[in-house]
Every structure is written in C-alpha cells, then in structure tokens.
C-alpha cells in the first residue's frame, strides 16, 4: 500500500509551508511536494497607489530582508523617473544604497547561519529538538552565539544609518536616497568600540567560515552528499562578471558551467524568464524560457552566485572563492549544504565591502536625487540574500501603479527546493513505516539550506511551522506528525 507523508509546518524558515511525501506500495518515495499554502497578493493591491509609495509599501512583504524589496522597487522606479537603468544615480545615491544593501545581506546571512542553521551543525539533524535551536547554541557554544547576535546587530546598525531605521526604513526614493551618511554615523560603524566595528566584523566573518569548514572536514560525506544534484544557476553579476549584489546583468550557467544566459539586460527579464503555475502551491515555478519548463529551472542564492560570477572584488573573499571553486575543480557546485559555505563567503565579502565603503568620502555628498524624462515602465533587479529578486512596475498617466510583477528569490528556488526535498525523502524515508523526528528535520534541513522566505515568495504573512503527512496510494492519510 502506498503512503503519503506531509511535513507541516516547516520550522526555522520564514513563512509557512508543508511537505507531502507520497510512498508507493513498496514503501518507496514516489513523489514529494513542498506546498506553499499562504497567499497575500501585494501585486494586486499595490495597483492604483502612487508609484513613489512602492519602495516603502512593498518592503512590508518581509521583516527579514525588507531592504531587498525596498531597493529593488526603488531601482525599478529609478527607471520610471528617468534616472537611468541602475547606473544613473549620483555617487552618494548609489553608494548609500549599496551600504544599506551590504548591511542587510550581512545581517540576514548571519541570522540564517547562526540562529537558524548552526543548531543543525552543532547538535546533528536528529539532535534533541529541545536544544537544537539558538538557545541550545548559547548554552553549548556561547562565543559563537554572541558573535552571531553581535554581527547581526552590526548589520542592523548599518541599515539604520542608511535607511533611517533597522526594519522598514525609507532611505531609497525614486532617483536616489533621502539622506547621506554623517561623519558621526560613519565613525560609529567604522571605528565603534569593540566589537561593533568594521574590522571586527571581518575577523568574525572569517571565524564563522572556519567553523563551517571545520564542520565540513569532519562531515564530508554528509555535507557533500546531502541533497546534492546538478542544476542550472542564475545570478546577477557586474558587467565585467564580478560578484555584485546591487547592479549588473543577468547571467546563467548550466551544470557544466556553460553560459545559458549571457549577461542580459534585466529590463527585458520577461523575454528570458517565465513562471509556471501548479495547482498545488501558491508559489510559482520560474524557468528560462528558451530551455523550457523541464530543463530551464535554475538555482539562485549564495551557491548560484558563487557558481556564476567570474570573481569577487575583495581579496579575502576572492581567496575563499578560489578554494570553493577548487573543491569542485572549477565546475558549478550542486551540493545543497554548500549553500552555507557560499553564504559565509558572502558574509566575509560583505564585511570587507562595508569596511572599505565606509572610508569613501562620497557618502557625505549632498546631491541625493536625480531625475530625468519619465517612463511608464521600470524593472529593478537586485541580488537579495536568498537570490535574484525582480520588481517590475508600470504606471498610468496619473502616476498610479497599473501593473506590478514580483519574482522573489525563494520563488526562483522553488524547483530546486522541491528537488532537494525529493532527494532527501528518498534517502531518509524509503522503506520506512514510521516518521521520526530526525526524518522530519532532514527534510527541513534540505529546505533550510536554501534559506527560503516563504512569506516573501507568496507575498504572505505568517510563521512557518511544519507538518508531515503520510498518504497511501488511495490518498488516505495514514500518519501525520506536526510540530
């Protein structure tokens, strides 16, 4: 008799989802699905609002990386107000936005690694759930936990000084920004008392990377083999191919590293990317049009970015990238748990970027905003912590938004997450009649590696608990486990 296992809700990710695993009569996994069951509808209710409200309104999708939505919307509106397509701002305008974005990347990645994922590494996937959380980390490894908390705080302070407040600020406006960085703010971030300064963040970022690399060394089989599969990878890169999370062109490579999207202008993203709707999830499935639904899906996020870029423009991160690349002999890395490795290299890169950018006197300039000839359509793309983020707006003759299309990072990772869940289910649940805590968490670990924000992906609000349901071949639920 076949069975279906449902994991709902999935914990320690943002949002709410559930996993269903279908077993065949022999108890083997025949199918699995990550269902996203929330719906919010930002794309619809922003219609009719004045366009300049979008960066402030749409960022309310999320409280973890609202800066990404804030900046992606602002970049789209830069186009609409005639301020170029990503490189037309004043020096202070672009650099303040970059600083804001780097700060957010830093805090979001740190939150994910230290608060959400490190418990799995410290206590094992099947560790006691009572201690397998951030509180357990504090008790087990106080120094690591304190670093995680303070690093996140530092990132939040960067956001506060650039966006006005730590969550849901207003810094980016169409055509620029509404404040520069005062000398006092700069000095606080650059040379703040220990540990709240830029140099310490670089040092701690290297420490976090070492922590993961040491874990990797002693758990090679798990880290390399867990939910490992080849895929395409998509990311924005700077025009010269450098890793860049603020502006650039769209590039994708296949599992062998061959370019399948060659540095395209994202203003035309809809020529290259299409979204498929499936009737069991509110989250769409994007794919590269020219490759079709079956072959065109891709990964985004830290792993994809490091697979796609040509180099990282800071010395310590570049050195780490070379080591990362050498591990797979220069081929794209398809190992899901290496997302964490890639994420921590990005944390180091952000720390270096913040430290260097803070020394740039352009941040104190006064020419905050530029405007040109108004356009009716604008697309803004940014690399959010979780991957490539698309914001597309069109306005009517009265300056009201008439169309909004958002393809968020987690949506881009929809098919990879489903694939990862499927592989994990097969390795942990084939031939099993009972759902154990460890099995449930293994599926979660696979999802969590992608750091999904299901709230953003469906433009939905909520917590993300987990339910696992086991269903037989007649679609009758024969077992269910929740937490």
């Amino acid at each position, binding site marked *: 008799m076949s069975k279906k296992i449902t994991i709902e809700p999935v914990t320690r990710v943002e949002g709410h989802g559930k996993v269903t695993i279908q077993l065949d009569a022999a108890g083997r996994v025949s199918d699995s699905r990550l269902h996203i069951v929330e719906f919010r509808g930002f794309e619809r209710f922003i219609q*009719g*609002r*004045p366009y*300049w*409200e979008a*960066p*402030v*309104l749409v960022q*309310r999708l999320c409280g973890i990386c609202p800066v990404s939505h804030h900046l992606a919307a602002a970049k789209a509106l830069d186009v609409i*107000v005639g301020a170029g397509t990503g490189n037309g701002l004043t020096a202070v305008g672009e650099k303040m936005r970059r600083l804001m974005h780097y700060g957010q990347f830093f805090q979001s990645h740190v939150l994910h690694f230290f608060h959400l994922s490190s418990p799995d590494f410290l206590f094992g996937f099947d560790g006691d759930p009572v201690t397998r959380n951030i509180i357990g980390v504090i008790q087990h490894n106080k120094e690591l936990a304190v670093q995680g908390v303070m690093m996140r705080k530092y990132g939040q302070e960067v956001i506060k000084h650039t*966006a*006005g*407040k730590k969550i*849901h*600020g*207003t*810094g980016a*406006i*169409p055509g620029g920004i*509404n*404040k520069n960085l005062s000398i006092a703010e700069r000095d606080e971030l650059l040379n703040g008392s220990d540990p709240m300064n830029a140099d310490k963040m670089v040092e701690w970022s290297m420490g976090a990377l070492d922590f993961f690399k040491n874990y990797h060394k002693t758990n090679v089989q798990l880290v390399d083999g867990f939910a490992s599969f080849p895929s395409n990878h998509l990311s924005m890169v700077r025009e010269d191919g450098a890793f860049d999370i603020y502006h650039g062109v769209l590039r994708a490579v296949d599992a062998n590293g061959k370019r399948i999207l060659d540095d395209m202008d994202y203003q035309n993203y809809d020529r290259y990317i299409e979204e498929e709707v499936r009737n069991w999830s509110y989250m769409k499935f994007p794919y590269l049009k020219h490759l079709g639904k079956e072959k065109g899906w891709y990964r985004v996020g830290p792993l994809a970015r490091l697979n796609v870029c040509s180099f990282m423009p800071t010395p310590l991160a570049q050195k780490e990238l070379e080591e990362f690349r050498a591990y797979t002999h220069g081929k794209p890395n398809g190992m899901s748990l290496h997302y964490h490795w890639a994420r921590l290299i990005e944390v180091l890169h952000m720390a270096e970027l913040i430290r260097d950018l803070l020394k740039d006197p352009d941040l104190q300039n006064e020419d905050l905003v530029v405007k040109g000839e108004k356009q009716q359509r604008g697309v803004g793309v940014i690399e959010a912590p979780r991957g490539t983020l698309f914001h597309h707006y069109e306005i009517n003759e*009265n*300056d*009201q938004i008439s169309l909004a299309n958002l393809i968020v990072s987690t949506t881009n990772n929809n098919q990879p997450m489903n694939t990862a869940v499927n592989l994990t289910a097969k390795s942990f649940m084939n031939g099993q009649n009972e759902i154990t805590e460890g099995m449930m968490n293994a599926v979660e670990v696979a999802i969590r590696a992608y750091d999904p924000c299901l709230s953003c992906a469906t433009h939905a609000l909520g917590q993300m608990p987990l339910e696992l349901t086991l269903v037989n071949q007649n679609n009758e639920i024969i077992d269910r486990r929740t937490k």
Partner: protein
Amino acid sequence: MKETIRFRIDEHQITAEKGQTVVEAAKANGVYIPTLCNFEGVKPKGCCRMCTIKVNNRFMTACTTPASAGMEVESSTDELNDIRKSIVELLFVTGNHFCPSCEKSGNCELQALAYRFRMMVPRFPYQFPQKGIDASSPRIIKDQNRCILCKRCIKTIKTPDGRDYFAYRNRGTKLEVVLDEKLGNEMPDAVARQAMENCPVGSIIYKEQGFLKPIGKRKFDKKPIGSDIEV
C-alpha cells in the same frame, strides 16, 4: 491695549487677552489642548471635537469657546483624554489609514495624536470603507482613504480671487472632500505644496516627491505632538 483676563485650565493659572479662544489662550500659556481641524488664521469650526473640554460640567470645544474671566476649565483629565482617544480611534476605523506606507507618516497629526494618546488597537471595529483616489491633477493626489473631513484644505487653499480648490460633496456617510477638476489641473506648484502641508493627514499628497524627509528628521519623530507648546 486689550483687556487681560484670568482663568484656570486644570491646575494652570491662565492669563489671556479678552477675545481669545480657550485653545489660543492655553497655547500662549504653555498648555497644550489637542486640536485637529483647527488651523491658525482660520475661523474655528469645532467640527472634529478633539479639543473637547469641560466647563461647568458641560462639554465644549476649546477652539470655539471664548476665554472668560474666572472660568474653570477641565482639559487633561482621564475622562477627556479618553474621549479624545476615542475620537482618534473613530477616525482610524472609519478611514483606511495604513501608516507604514503613508508618506505623511512622522508628519501626520492624526498618527501623532494616536501616539500621544497611546492608541494600540481601536475599541471600534474597522469599517474598511471603499474609498477612491483622485490622481487626475498633475500636481496632487487626493486620497479619500485618509481624509478626515476636517475642512482645512477647503478653508485655506484658495485662488488669488478667492475661489475654492476643494469642496464638500455628498452628505452623511458619503461626505467627501473633492478637488475642483479645472482648478486642480491649473494648480500652481506652491499651492499644491501648501495644500499638502495644511492637510493634517496624508490625504493630499504632492506628486512625485515622496519620503524626502529621512526618518529622524520628521516633525514628530523625536517629540510628541504638542510638546512645542507645553512648558
């Protein structure tokens, strides 16, 4: 020289010129009585009731009540502050006020009053009325979702020859402030900016220039409304 009179507001001894309203006299003596529809230079109407006070155990509006010698005014009492808070709550539930995405946030008098009276969740059910936006003027947007019908725009925004840009339309629950279509199309830039400035909420929005003031530099970011008056 005008005649001087003395009266009390709560524990404060107030010295006023004869002819001043209670609100004006209070302000001149460093006592804050909350207002919303009242606007300096415009004849008070007492329509929002935010300045409700008690004189001889009767509810009055301080913006329309002339100060008189020896009067005993109750203003900052639990009862009156709760009435004011309930008025703020009523305004919130009868409109669609979403502060997080409103560019008047931080400069909005309604929001500032809600903070001052520590409004958390309104005691009344939200009405979520269906209201529209008039964005047809090249200079401003009139967002009916946020309008509190205070008439400040009607009374203060006029053409040089005295014609009104704004007017009431309909009655009862359908009452709304509308912008004259022809005048709205010809509205000079300075007038549009003044209209936004005079609106206590985010109902009149100057086009294409949102969120210019960074957080921390907005009117009510650092100090609550009324603190510029209070001694």
